[in-house]
Structure formats: structure tokens, C-alpha cells
């Protein structure tokens, strides 16, 4: 029944062409000799050279990486705690409010989140800079982490934890030596998700950033508003390359892991 009809082939081909041709054009024109992005004038890597000499971009990239690493680490810790509380925490005062606060940021328009955080920072007299961007990013990313981690927590067998507790573990030991290793893949993908969200964010960072702390998306946005430039194409190509490498490696690794688990299961049955 499930065969590849001409309709399926056409829709998949057109669909993937739609998704990938724009990115492909962007990458191709980053190797264009000409400053005019629309006229092909021969192969060149000179825009990568000018990009690497552009101090403003390099500074912005450093700020972005710092913010990304710190905020996604905080988000992963808080998000894992929040997921654990939601799935295993039982009843406590204000549980509904808590779950509302975890899900609401996922659907909140970025302009509102950004505006509200900025007004908070000003109301309490916090100087805007890297610190405020980290606070803002950690807050919205922790909600994504908690969704990823709680879906893993829901699906795994609670009796494993109970067995550890029965055998004399403290709840903390049980978490450390039983729960954490099992949910580790979800925690790692939560961190990666938080990190990419942070690298990608323009709107919230624009509200939360001060004049001294420009992130890469803010820099790209202000350059792009004036039009298409080959330097931005080169920068985009580098960023796309890093992401593609990461995602493809991760999927190959998980594919191999799944194959190994299947083999182990079969061996165990023998």
C-alpha cells in the first residue's frame, strides 16, 4: 500500500527544493567575486577574508557565544529542575500557575517578552548589557528545555527510581545515579536547543541589550536593513555550515545508538 507514487515524489521534490534552494543561492553568492550580489563574476573567497578582518563582527560573535553558553547552561539547569517538579513533584501550592508560566513563554510573541523584560530591567535599575541578555535568554530557553526534558521523564519507568530509593538511596543520589543518566540525551538536546535559540534571537536581545553589548543577530539585522551584502552571505554560510555539521553528526550518532540498542536487545533475547 505505502508505495512511492508520482504524487509523493513530486511533492517531496518540490517541497525540499522550496526549503533548500534559497539557502543554496545564499551560499553560492557568498563565493561571488563581485560586490553586486546579484551578478555572478567568478569564484572568490575574498568576502570571507574581509569578514574575518571586520572587528565589529568578531566582537559581536564573541558576545553572542558568551551569552549563548552561559544562558543555555542556566536554562538547562532551571529547565531540568522545572521538568522534574512538573512530572515528579506531586502537588504543591500554585502548581497551575507554575505550569502556565512554563508554557506561556513558548507562544508569547517575542516583542512582548522583550518589551516586558526591558521595562523590568529599567524599573529595578539594572544596567543593560551581557548580563541582562543572559537573564532574558535563560528565561525563555528554560521553558523549551523543560518541555524537552519532561517528555523524556514522562516516558521512562518510574519504578527504576523507586527501586533505587528502596535500596537505600537518598532522593538526590537516586536522581544522580538513576534518573540523570536516563534523561541525559534529553538534557543535552535541551541545551543545544537553548543554545541555538540564544544564537538566533534578534528581537528579545534588541530589547535587553545595552549600547555596549551588540550580539551577532543585532549586527546582522542592522547591516541587512540596508540591503544584501556579500559579507553577510559569507557570515551566513559559516553559520549554516556549523549548524548543518552539528545536526547531521548528531543524527548519525543517534542512528548508530539506536542500531546498537536494537542489537543488544536481540542479543539479550538469545
Amino acid at each position: 500500500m505505502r508505495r512511492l507514487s508520482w504524487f509523493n515524489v513530486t511533492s517531496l521534490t518540490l517541497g525540499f527544493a522550496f526549503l533548500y534552494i534559497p539557502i543554496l543561492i545564499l551560499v553560492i553568492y557568498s563565493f561571488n567575486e563581485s560586490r553586486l550580489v546579484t551578478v555572478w563574476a567568478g569564484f572568490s573567497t575574498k568576502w570571507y577574508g574581509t569578514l574575518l578582518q571586520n572587528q565589529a563582527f568578531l566582537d559581536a560573535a564573541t558576545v553572542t557565544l558568551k551569552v549563548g553558553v552561559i544562558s543555555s547552561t542556566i536554562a538547562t539547569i532551571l529547565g531540568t529542575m522545572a521538568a522534574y517538579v512538573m512530572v515528579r513533584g506531586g502537588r504543591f501550592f500554585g502548581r497551575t500557575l507554575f505550569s502556565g508560566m512554563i508554557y506561556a513563554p513558548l507562544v508569547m510573541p517575542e516583542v512582548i517578552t522583550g518589551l516586558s523584560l526591558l521595562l523590568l530591567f529599567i524599573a529595578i535599575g539594572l544596567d543593560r548589557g551581557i548580563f541582562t541578555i543572559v537573564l532574558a535568554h535563560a528565561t525563555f530557553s528554560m521553558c523549551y528545555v523543560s518541555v524537552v526534558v519532561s517528555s523524556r521523564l514522562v516516558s521512562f519507568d518510574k519504578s527504576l527510581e523507586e527501586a533505587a530509593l528502596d535500596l537505600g538511596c537518598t532522593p538526590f543520589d537516586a536522581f544522580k545515579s538513576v534518573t540523570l543518566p536516563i534523561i541525559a540525551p534529553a538534557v543535552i538536546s535541551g541545551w543545544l536547543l537553548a543554545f541555538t535559540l540564544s544564537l538566533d534571537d534578534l528581537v528579545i536581545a534588541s530589547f535587553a541589550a545595552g549600547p555596549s553589548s551588540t550580539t551577532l543577530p543585532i549586527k546582522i539585522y542592522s547591516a541587512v536593513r540596508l540591503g544584501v551584502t556579500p559579507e553577510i552571505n559569507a557570515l551566513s554560510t559559516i553559520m549554516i555550515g556549523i549548524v548543518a555539521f552539528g545536526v547531521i553528526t548528531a543524527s548519525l550518532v543517534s542512528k548508530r545508538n539506536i542500531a546498537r540498542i536494537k542489537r543488544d536487545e536481540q542479543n539479550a533475547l538469545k
Partner: protein
Amino acid sequence: MNYRRLLLISVPYLWLFALFLVPFFIVMKISLSDLAIAIPPYTPTLSLGEGWQGFKEFWSGLDMENYIFLTEDDLYWKAYLSSFKIAFFSTVLTLLVGYPIAYGMANAPPEWRPTLMMFIILPFWTSFLIRVYAWMGILSKQGFLNQFLLWSGLIDDPLVLLNTNIAVYIGIVYTYVPFMILPIYATLEKLDGSLIEAAVDLGCSRFKAFWLVTIPLSKSGVIAGCFLVFIPALGEFVIPSLLGGSRTLMIGKVLWEEFFSNRDWPVASAVAVILLLLLVIPIVLFQRNEQKQREAEQ
């Protein structure tokens, strides 16, 4: 209750309380304040030093003036209406583009599916800003699309596409289509193929079987996908700002300009509060759909 449990609950709780909930009350408060030439640029500000008298003065300074202003100046409700229209039609377009892709994936050989899935998710990990930027080069007057159409002889003069609403629609469909594909694919993949065989055996044409069996059974995925596109599209800022023109009115852009260009914080806050109220309805409907789906699975 031991202190560890208390700590575990209170840390994320207080974090979200302080950095998510409290900021909203500040937005609401400022939306009731007046614009002032001061730092911060609104009045009244609460001065706790003056005790009860200070609070009373603060309270009497709050009014609905900004909301009345929003209803009087037709820019704002035009912007709300136009965001709603753009979000609605781009959701429909995204569904038309996304459904065939999801259908093709669900009917592909099982060993291909993880790879296809990865290639749908891959653009989602790539910077949103970069994906929008890619279309600026394609849609501009000397851009790739115009060059191609001129070369092929389909048009004689380049089309004006960039900085129009058409570009905004293309941008939204392009960036949000993975959100439509994934939930639809999830429902189609679980669909029992023998149901369609039964329909065909009982005399349905393939198309009629698709219409009467596949479409109704994938309804929950379609609804979830539509909300996942509609809700963020409504408050979208980057796409109308880069691909849209000066005549593209979207509420996210209005809020941004009100705040950064006009520096009118009270009006920007009032715009935010109304946008939030508009979003409550689709969000509640979305949650109900998810709930129903979860119950159906159990």
C-alpha cells in the same frame, strides 16, 4: 516537606515569577501611565518613600488614556486587522504547501523517513534571520527570481516583489512550514493504511478515499499545525520589517517602532497588552485541541 524539595520547586518558580510574571504587571502598569519627558519616560512613578500618600498619588495618575488613544487613531486597529489577515492567509498557504510534503513523507519507505525528517528539521536549527535574509536576495528587483523570469521570457519587466505583502507571505510560509509539516506528519504516519484499502475495496476512488478517510483522520495534526503557524505569525516582527514595505502594517512592527522610534513607552505597552488579549483565544483553542488529542491517545 523537606528543604530539598522546597529548594527544587522554589528556584525555577521564583525565577519565572520574577522574570516572566512580574514584567507583565509592569507592562500593564505602564500602559496605564502617561508619556513624560523624563527618565524613565512615563509618569507617574511609584515613590515608596512618601508612604501611603505617594501610593495614592500614583494610583490616581493611572488611567485608560492610552487605550482610548489606540481606538481613536485608526493606525492601530488597522494594524491589528492587517496582522490578523496576514497571519490567517499565510497559515492557509502554509497548510497548502505543508500538507503534500507531510503526506509524501508519511508515504515514503520507512527507512527513508528519519532522513527526510532530519532535512525538515535542519532549516529550523538554522538562523531565522538568515533564512529571511536569503529571500531578500531572491526577491529584489535584480534578484534571482526576476533574473530567472526575464531569462525564461515569462516577463518583460522585473516584478516588484521585495517590500510588498507578497514577500511577507512568502517569508512566513518559508520560515514556518516545518511547524506545519511535523504535526501533520505525526498524525499521517500513525494512520492505518488498511482503512484506505478498505475504502478503495468498497468502491471509493483513490482521491475520494483520501478526501473521506485521510483528511478527517489527520484533522488534529492540521489544527495543531495551523495554530503553531498562526500564533507566532500574528506577532511577527522580523519578516514584515525586512521583507515588507512601508505599507505593510503588522502589530509587532508597530510596537517596535512605537518603542524604539517614537519612544512612547506607555502606548507601546498598551499595544502589547491588546496583542496579548487577542492571542489568548487561539492559545486556549490550541491547548484544548492538544488536550483532546492526548485523551484520544490514551
